[in-house]
């Protein structure tokens, strides 16, 4: 086997984070090379390095023995590397042919050469096994067919290496078979494929070799015939983490605050139930896209739920909109603070009082003095670093912005706080301050839920952890049984089993 792509000591650093650490990797010509790892293991960074979006801080790459160091996506395309992203990048109202050759339409004396365009497209469609006319508008296609168009588009530039990022995430079992048939056909014609997926089971069907990443480092590479699922999970978890959090067990758990029964969303077939006690922090683990965020949003009324009951302090409540949820005392600290949590171009004080402006007003008029007092107290309590409460939140750092979001929910005085990735993109110092805030909330008898992709954070902070897998709560792990490997096993559960 000849090596088509070699990575030597690739390192990518961001302020405070090493995304890839001295990564060595070999890809053989004509193989399907599988790449797996937990959330944040470095898969996305690796893709971005390969297709010229990130420039590595250290290391070198070789393509067929020649040095390769893309400065921009176009360099990657010229070198024969193309990515098929999880999210499609197609123009729905144009034909298949126009989509495939969008960047480089064949021309004849200034006009588009449609004859050549369609015949070239037909050749590519045959290659990927898509049975459709080149003239068909993309909006008429199903998801699986669109994916094949994406692959055809990637092949249109004489690609040698194809990166498929989570190609089966949105496909049904039947479509997956279709995709695999295409992959096998491409393999036969000499194209090398790098395949990234969460779905462990299918890797054994399609992969030749596998590389496992963890914390930006390679844990190992094996032939697919040498490994099994438990072995892979073990590799992804690696050695046990040292305990860096001091769990506080001085909190007496009180009565049940929130109970969710048989919550079902339209997009999922599963019914989920769970409850939270006063003073408790319930962690929610699971892969990105496993329904963690979606279920919490449905509870909060931000998205529709199909059915399910919500009880607060044992009393059944109706939540049809965030308005209802806030009125009942449920707070949701959203995943994306910039687009969902804050009004960026408005002052800190306004954001902090946004959940209940009536509290700082009399007969509809805002009481500026009261507002200032409230905001200044919150700034002091939460140690928000700002010269003035009139500062626009846009100018704040990530950690301080997150504190403003938490402040606005403290201001309206909820009973249940749902945190969705509260420490994502925040520096270490601010992280610990936010953990402390969460502890204080728990100590004051609130019920807390925390979604996180950061496993050490969940293990360090929570009383118990619920694990989501493909939209279902597949397990609940108590603190005394905390074990990263066990949780990860659960997280992969519904992706591993046959979905009959």
């Amino acid at each position, binding site marked *: 086997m000849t090596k088509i792509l070699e990575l030597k000591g690739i390192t990518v650093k961001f302020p405070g984070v090493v995304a890839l650490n001295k990564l060595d990797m070999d890809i053989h010509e004509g193989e399907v090379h599988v790449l797996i790892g937990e959330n944040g293991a470095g898969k996305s960074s690796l893709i971005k390095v390969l297709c010229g979006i990130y420039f590595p801080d250290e290391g070198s790459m070789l393509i067929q023995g020649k040095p390769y160091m893309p400065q921009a996506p176009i360099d990657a395309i010229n070198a024969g590397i193309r990515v098929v992203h999880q999210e499609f990048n197609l123009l729905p109202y144009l034909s298949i042919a126009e989509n495939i050759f969008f960047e480089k339409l064949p021309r004849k004396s200034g006009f588009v050469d449609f004859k050549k365009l369609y015949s070239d497209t037909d050749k590519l469609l045959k290659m990927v096994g898509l049975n459709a006319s080149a003239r068909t508008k993309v909006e008429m296609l199903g998801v699986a067919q669109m994916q094949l168009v994406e692959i055809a588009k990637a092949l249109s530039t004489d690609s040698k290496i194809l990166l498929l990022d989570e190609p089966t995430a949105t496909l049904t079992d039947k479509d997956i078979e279709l995709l695999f048939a295409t992959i096998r056909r491409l393999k036969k014609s000499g194209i090398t494929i790098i395949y990234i997926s969460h779905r462990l089971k299918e890797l054994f069907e399609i992969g030749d070799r596998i590389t496992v990443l963890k914390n930006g480092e390679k844990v190992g590479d094996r032939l697919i015939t040498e490994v099994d699922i438990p072995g892979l999970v073990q590799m992804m978890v690696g050695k046990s983490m040292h305990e860096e959090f001091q769990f506080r067990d001085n909190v007496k758990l009180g009565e049940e605050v929130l109970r969710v029964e048989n919550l079902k969303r339209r997009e999922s077939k599963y019914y989920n139930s769970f409850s939270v006690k006063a003073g408790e922090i319930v962690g929610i683990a699971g892969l990105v896209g496993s329904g963690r965020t979606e279920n919490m949003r449905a509870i909060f009324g931000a998205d529709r739920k199909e059915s399910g009951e919500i009880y607060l302090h044992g009393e059944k409540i109706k939540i049809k909109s*965030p308005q209802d*949820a806030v009125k009942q005392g449920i707070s949701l600290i959203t995943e994306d603070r910039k*687009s969902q949590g804050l*009004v*960026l171009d*408005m002052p800190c004080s*306004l954001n902090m009082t946004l959940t209940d*402006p009536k509290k700082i007003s009399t007969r509809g*008029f*805002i009481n500026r003095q009261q507002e200032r007092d409230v905001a200044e107290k919150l700034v002091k309590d939460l140690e928000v670093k700002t010269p003035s409460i009139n500062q626009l939140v846009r100018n704040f750092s990530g950690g301080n912005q997150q504190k403003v979001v938490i402040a606005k929910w403290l201001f309206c005085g909820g009973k249940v706080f749902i945190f969705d990735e509260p420490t994502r993109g925040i520096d270490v110092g601010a992280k610990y301050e936010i953990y402390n805030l969460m502890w204080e909330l728990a100590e004051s008898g609130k019920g807390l839920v925390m979604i996180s992709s950061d496993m050490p954070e969940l293990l360090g902070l929570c009383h118990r952890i619920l694990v989501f897998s493909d939209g279902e709560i597949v397990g609940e792990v108590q603190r005394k049984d905390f074990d990263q490997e066990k949780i990860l096993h659960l997280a992969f559960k519904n992706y591993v089993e046959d979905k009959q």
Partner: protein
Amino acid sequence: MNIKKIVHLLLQEAGIGVALLVCCIFFTCATEHFASMSNFTNILTQISINTVIAAGMTFVILLGGIDLSVGSVLALCTIVSGLILTRESFSSWQAIILSILASLVAGGICGLFNGVVSTKWKIHSFIVTLGMLNIARGAALLISDSRTYFNFPDSFIDFGALTFVGIPVIFIIAILFIIIGTIILKYTVFGRMIYAIGNNDEAVRLSGHNTNFYKVAAFVICGGSIGVAAIMYMLRLSISSPISGVGFELNAIAAVVIGGTSMSGGKGSLLGTFLGAAIIGVLNNGLLLVGLGDFARQIITGLIIVLAVILDTYRNKLSKKLESI
């Protein structure tokens, strides 16, 4: 530090005021009649109606919407209220009060329609109000059978002709409108919500507010202000006509934009809108006195609108730069 603050304030708040002042000084020097009391009264009369419509429009634009139907709705309001005003069965005072109420209600209902349809079905207000532009005009023509109403009660006409030290009564109405609107926008929870939603709709929704309520309310306010503007139109011209108000939407939008309100919402003020309307009025009047014809004036007004928006982007950049120093 202090100088920086002053420059910043000038750029941010008073930029349009300075432009207005420059226009006035220019026309005072260039013509002999511009700076006279009678011309002053004239200008104030001319800008009053646009000021009120543009004020209503500002609420809608602050939420990232637009209302193209204001001109047609104004015609409908004048017809509905003119119909009552010319009824002989009412005493003149009854007729006046009823006609004012009718105008406000007609405008409000049109606004309610615009607001409810655009939020309920998530259709861009550009389309919905384009529909309303035709609906209201058609309704006005249908109700009036394309006739113009006049012969309003004497007390109504006399009131419209009142001036206080050269300030016409309809201008006083317009200024009151701006002041009340400013108080609402700056000092109430409602106003704060308008700005916050204009900036980030989703964040406000997820903070537990019914954002649709505010969007509909903004359209109803806009409709109500057209109702007021329709009465002012009748006070000024003593007629109500189904073909009145053609093109008013463009003047109103121009005033809002020149006044520094962002078309994508969340930023702007009624004071700016008032100054915007004043600049348009002063230009129209001054250019006429300088001796330019209708067509040339239209070209210049158009150029000024574009120039104002270009200057606005520079102004923002500059004030941001100053802020970061």
